[in-house]
């Protein structure tokens, strides 16, 4: 699957603001500046809005959303 464009735009804009290129599938989103502890909250809200999944509070941690591949895996596993 591919991630919704709004989600990718959010990550790409954050990375670019930090002077980094758009992250690739296995790039660390937290090292590239695409995500940090605060952006993660907005990111999860976007994911919920655009994919229909519900991310429980206990899952909102960097370990689940470290790379684009990890995000895709999370969505696949949590689709209804």
């Amino acid at each position, binding site marked *: 699957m591919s991630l919704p464009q709004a989600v990718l735009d959010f990550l790409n804009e954050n990375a670019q603001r930090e002077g980094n290129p758009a992250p690739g599938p296995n790039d660390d989103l937290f090292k590239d500046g695409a995500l940090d502890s*605060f952006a993660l*909250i*907005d990111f999860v809200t976007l994911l919920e809005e655009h994919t229909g999944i519900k991310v429980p509070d206990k899952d*909102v941690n*960097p370990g689940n959303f470290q790379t684009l591949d990890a995000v895709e895996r999370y969505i696949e596993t949590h689709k209804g």
Partner: protein
Amino acid sequence: MPAFIIGSGTSIPDRVVSNEEIAPSLGLDPEQIFKSSGILRRRWAEAGTTTSALASVALQTAITDAGVLPEEIDYLIFGTMTPDRLIPGSAPTVQRTLGLGQIPCLDIRQACCNPLYALQIATALIGSNLASRVAICLAEIQSAWLDMSPESGTTSMLFGDGASALIVSGDTSSNSLEVIDIALATDGSYVDDLGVRGPGTEFGTAASGNENSKPRMVGQSVILNASRKIMAACQDVLKRNSLQVADIRWLVPHQANANLLAQIARGLHFPVENGGLISVLEDLGNTSSASMGIALDSLRRSARISPGDYLLLPAFGAGFSWGAGLCRATS
């Protein structure tokens, strides 16, 4: 009977502590501290300064600002997490220092939500004719409790010392703010995610020098819950007063972290371009109980509030406790 904030005051210690000064011992980079918190510097009190001493100065300023006499204050509420003593509370010391009458003195310990709890209690006291002029002290000396090792770096980098005070009255005056509503909530499932465990009956009575006496913060849990619960509280208090975010001129949050403040504004679609989001974080850091009062005092003294302006006051803290207050400037 309505209640009005008719005076405010602040007391800030002289000593400026920059990110450059604390970064090495915390194992952090100064720029990293600023980027992750919006804080450039904070103030720390000199060793031996008591919280009540700082609070007394703020309250004297607020009494003068309100144009009332100390003997007209008929109730004192003191919100702090860092009291002078374990017993009694710090309010009696302020009562003695300022020569207030032999009035009820109440300490509360709702952490960063202290301003909202104090305002709700003051409003209820006035509304029920149990008091007519309530003094509120909000003060912290946190520097003495901080663990300045890398283990606590991302927590200890945030905190500063300071005090604020408010006078709440049943009578309005010029430059006063009517307290319209206060919404409060708590979820005790998170008692261990933010706070200090000891001394106490659960983790032992040793006052310092052990793991339980250090401030604890589970960062991601705090950020997640703070952003979601603050927004929910704001929307709740607006809805039950038939208001929209667009009706709010000033957003005066608990000063936790600049990134959180920005996120709240973004989540609420509150426009920040017109300077409506009040932040004192850059220069003062997170002063916990005192922070919202300091921000509110700085706004009142800037003379930028116009009659009829609505102010939204959200807070989140240990417990987890959270809420939002709504005030309106009188004409």
